């Protein structure tokens, strides 16, 4: 595989996961917010915050219109091609990366990616009502899963396959920490006392993990909550522990596996050494910050193996 292709195939995995996660997040949050028994003080702009945008600021810049806040937020998240976290922008980036590494991906996957792109171009042009939106986001998610399934069934087990999977799991870990950060921790008053048990299980919907959360609760000796679950429960495919495990497993054959594994171990150590239930909300917040920084560093290590390679190159050049 070409050195140059590394970034493209890694980003292909990240964007595909981002598309899936964003669609899930939109649907889960919509369900939460239209529920008459609201168990939170969330509002629509929070969705933008989860995706790394400043929701309040973005909306305040919009010209006055008849649109509700919900519609404005959905405009940003779904149809706006210029908003870098939108469904459409993620899909465009996905397609561009796929085009660049087309020789590495199986024909069936190429066709799935194509039909995903065509589907979004056709259906994500205009905002529609909630019911339509729900179906649309479900379909986006389903089509993303189709791509993954086709890939799993047809792609050569190669560096490209590993990098694609690393991309997916780095993105997923990133999304899980964001959701924890914005939807859970920022809602808690920072205190020095032990954090209160929080029961916002509806948030787990965004991660498709409500049922397995109940299974988890039923099978633990100690008292645990969603924070333990999302961080440490390695059997749940959207937990941080699982994502790190998958990154490590996929990185083994890469030339810079040592550097990647070192980063992964550092993050895994963060999980092991802390007694999560003893942390205050403030400390927990710090921990999540450390994870987010760690994930950014992990991304950099993955996408820049040229520190070693360029030395390798120059040695060979002078030889």
């Amino acid at each position: 595989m070409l050195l140059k292709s590394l970034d493209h195939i890694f980003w292909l995995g990240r964007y595909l996961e981002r598309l899936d996660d964003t669609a899930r997040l939109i649907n889960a949050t919509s369900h939460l917010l239209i529920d008459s028994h609201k168990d939170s003080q969330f509002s629509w702009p929070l969705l933008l915050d989860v995706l790394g945008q400043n929701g309040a600021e973005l909306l305040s810049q919009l010209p006055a219109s008849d649109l509700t806040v919900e519609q404005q937020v959905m405009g940003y998240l779904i149809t706006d091609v210029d908003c870098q976290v939108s469904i459409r922008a993620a899909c465009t980036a996905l397609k561009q990366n796929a085009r660049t590494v087309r020789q590495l991906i199986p024909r069936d996957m190429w066709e799935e990616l194509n039909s995903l792109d065509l589907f979004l171009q056709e259906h994500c042009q205009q905002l529609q009502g909630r019911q339509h939106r729900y179906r649309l986001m479900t379909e986006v998610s389903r089509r993303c899963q189709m791509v993954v399934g086709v890939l799993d069934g047809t792609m050569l087990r190669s560096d490209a396959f590993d990098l694609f999977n690393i991309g997916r799991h780095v993105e997923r870990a990133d999304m899980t920490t964001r959701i924890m950060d914005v939807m859970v921790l920022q809602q808690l008053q920072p205190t020095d006392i032990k954090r209160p048990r929080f029961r916002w299980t509806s948030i787990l919907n965004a991660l498709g993990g409500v049922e397995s959360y109940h299974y988890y609760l039923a099978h633990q000796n100690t008292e645990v909550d969603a924070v333990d679950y999302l961080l440490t429960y390695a059997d749940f495919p959207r937990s941080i522990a699982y994502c790190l495990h998958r990154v490590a497993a996929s990185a083994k054959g890469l030339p810079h596996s040592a550097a990647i594994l070192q980063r992964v171990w550092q993050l895994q150590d963060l999980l092991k050494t802390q007694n999560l239930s003893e942390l205050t909300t403030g400390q927990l917040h710090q921990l999540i910050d450390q994870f987010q920084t760690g994930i950014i560093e992990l991304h950099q290590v993955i996408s820049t193996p040229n520190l070693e390679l360029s030395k390798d190159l120059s040695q060979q050049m002078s030889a």
Partner: protein
Amino acid sequence: MGAKSFGHYQQIDQCFDELVHKDGQIRTPAAAIARFIDRHGSGELIQRQEQLNQTISAMGVCFTLYSDGNNIDRCWPLDVMPRTIPSSEWQKTSAGLKQRLAALNLFIDDLYHDQRILKDGIVPADLVLDSRNYLAPCKGISPRYGVWANICGTDLVRDGSGQFLVLEDNLRVPSGVSYMLENRTVMKRVFPELFADSFIYPVDDYPHQLWRMLASLSPRPGDVPCIVLLTPGVYNSAYFEHSFLAQQMGVELAENTDLIVQDDIVYLKTLHGLQRVDVIYRRVDDIFIDPEAFRPDSVLGIPGLIKAWAKGNVSIANAPGSGVADDKVIYAYVPEIINYYLGEQPLIDNVPTYLCLDKKQRDYVLANLDKLVVKPANESGGYGILIGPRSTKEEQQQMAEAIKANPRNFIAQPTLALSTAPTLCDGVLEPRHLDLRPFILQGRDLYCTTGGLSRVALKKGSLVVNSSQGGGSKDTWIINDEV
């Protein structure tokens, strides 16, 4: 069976129709298609065309157009009606195509070595030596098997009698083969019953044949050869084809920055370090591949590549310099070239051609600009052509000036009554003109595709088949008529 299968299909008088005899009878190879239309009606054809378009768009079969400085991916245009050719005829045609490429390669090898053909006065020396496609740095170099043009796309047309004639030889970076392959994939999805009902020869071994030919060029026989396809990049109009072929052959798709030359060895920058490259299938024009050798201003090239190639450390297909035989003036001499090297008569004739560099022929051309097709010697894509009967007096005047200023640069041919085939136009089958581009490979062995890419001029009466200028395509079925 009557032509009623094709509705009120009206043939064009002087033209040979690929599917229908002059008397309106359906040609035997097209019988299955006619049965299909009889059984299902022409409405079904319109529906299948719709399905076909959707399939093409879902498969992402596209070509890139440059427009206002932007690159736009367009869906590849494929007509629902296939073009049929009997296998007995194709056998002879394919033998003629192989004969032609074998002779052209002997010709190129001669030009870069002893130049016997020039000394013997068969081809005028200045015609070759003054050509911008004759690359002096290639003199004395011997590519494997003495073969320079390993991949050739030869454009064939039929005249009014139905005889195949060679229109031109594309020896530089011929493109289109991916569309031949994808057309077939699409048609099989859309017309499974027609494939079950006829004996249509498959085309899908081309990527393997291409790989085999490239592998046969490796300077390190015995080892697993490292083959790369060199592309100008994602913004090139043929990028779809480059990535398609790389994927189908399982080779790396490299840009110039992915390759590096050290001690006259070419390396690929891979994830695991440098890997020695044995064969480069270049889809970049040869004058751009090495700024040290040809164009210092080229940003596409790989410095030192030509030196590595000259030393025999890497093979390049097509070899740099092979474009010298891809020249519409040289084209006029190909029948003599075949005779000179092989001692054989050409199995496929040329289109009659007037050379403007010859005074007598030039005078004839200038006097008959309204009847002839005039072509510049070194353009491709259908650009710069004057089609006499469809041109204005001003255009003829401009062409006359251009010819007088640079006679060597122009040839003229009679306006051919290109063959036609029924084509779905606004829901009705109408005759449209078409050509055929088969692809011929030469390494250790010679190979010719089964059929090729049929390109069709979609505009009524038009003779221009290029996709960049409103042309479409048809799947080409070589049908067994020898059982």
